[in-house]
């Protein structure tokens, strides 16, 4: 059985190739490459990835333009039908701007662009993206962002924490995110947004392989279904 995935490229995406490379190396099947102006996704997708970058030059707000691009209507429809959607970095910003995930990503509290490996802890290892990790496991994944400071009002934060929707937390100071949140799931658990880049940690040559389990979890979830 072949894993049918798609990577969406917006004008200004710059991690789409890394994402496609990771998906191909781990699943064994090359993902479909989809352009932001396309109105439709390939049929019967098992996985959709929104990559990092600076879509539309971060005009207005990071992810704001991409969230309203033609292909996002199709991504939102697919997400609502249960197709797994992973948004990394700018992809996470697009997911919050599109309303698929709660909250927003503000400018880093320290005002600086942060580009380094950071320690994360796995807060929820029951999701289709995180079942390959141990609960509370500490992993090393790089970040590279200017607007990664996760914000939501207290009621929303209480709710997503109570529902186990925090997938990852920073295990060190990174960007000022509320309650150290690094990755958030939607209510149904099939949409994950995260600022760190798991696709950049899949081979030893990249300095580590802690990102692999995320993709392997999603592939296994499909195989088990």
């Amino acid at each position, binding site marked *: 059985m072949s894993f049918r995935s798609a990577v969406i490229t917006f004008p200004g995406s710059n991690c789409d190739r890394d994402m496609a490379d990771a998906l191909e190396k781990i699943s064994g099947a090359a993902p479909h490459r989809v352009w932001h102006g396309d109105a439709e996704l390939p049929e019967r997708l098992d996985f959709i990835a929104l990559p990092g970058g600076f879509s539309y030059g971060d005009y*207005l707000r990071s992810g704001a333009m991409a969230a309203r691009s033609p292909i996002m209507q199709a991504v939102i429809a697919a997400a609502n039908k249960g197709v797994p959607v992973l948004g990394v970095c700018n992809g996470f910003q697009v997911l919050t701007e599109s309303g698929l995930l709660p909250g927003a990503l503000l400018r880093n509290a320290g*005002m600086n662009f942060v580009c380094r490996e950071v320690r994360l802890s796995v807060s929820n290892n029951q999701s289709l993206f995180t079942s390959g990790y141990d609960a509370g496991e500490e992993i090393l994944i790089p970040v590279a962002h200017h607007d990664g400071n996760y914000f939501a009002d207290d009621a929303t934060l209480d709710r997503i924490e109570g529902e186990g929707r925090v997938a990852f937390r920073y295990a060190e100071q990174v960007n000022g995110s509320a309650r150290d949140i690094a990755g958030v799931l939607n209510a149904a658990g099939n949409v994950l947004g995260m600022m760190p880049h798991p696709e950049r940690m899949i081979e030893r040559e990249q300095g580590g392989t802690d990102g692999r389990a995320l993709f392997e979890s999603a592939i296994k979830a499909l195989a088990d279904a």
Partner: protein
Amino acid sequence: MKVRVYVSLKNGVLDPQGRAIHHAIEGLGIHGVNDVRAGKMIELEVDPSVTDGQLEEMASKLLANMVIENYRIERLAA
């Protein structure tokens, strides 16, 4: 007709940019500034047929992110 939409961060949302500007103002040697919040102003040139409801829609669905921002619409005399 000219319309201005002012977008500002909600109270309670941290504004590191405003804080940095505040710092820089103090660097000018000017005292008495107690707080700085940075926002943006978007100017639109619209037909008179564009309704208040449509302006509200563009402001709330696109120009401002209602999770973190408020907006104020100002219609300017032609």
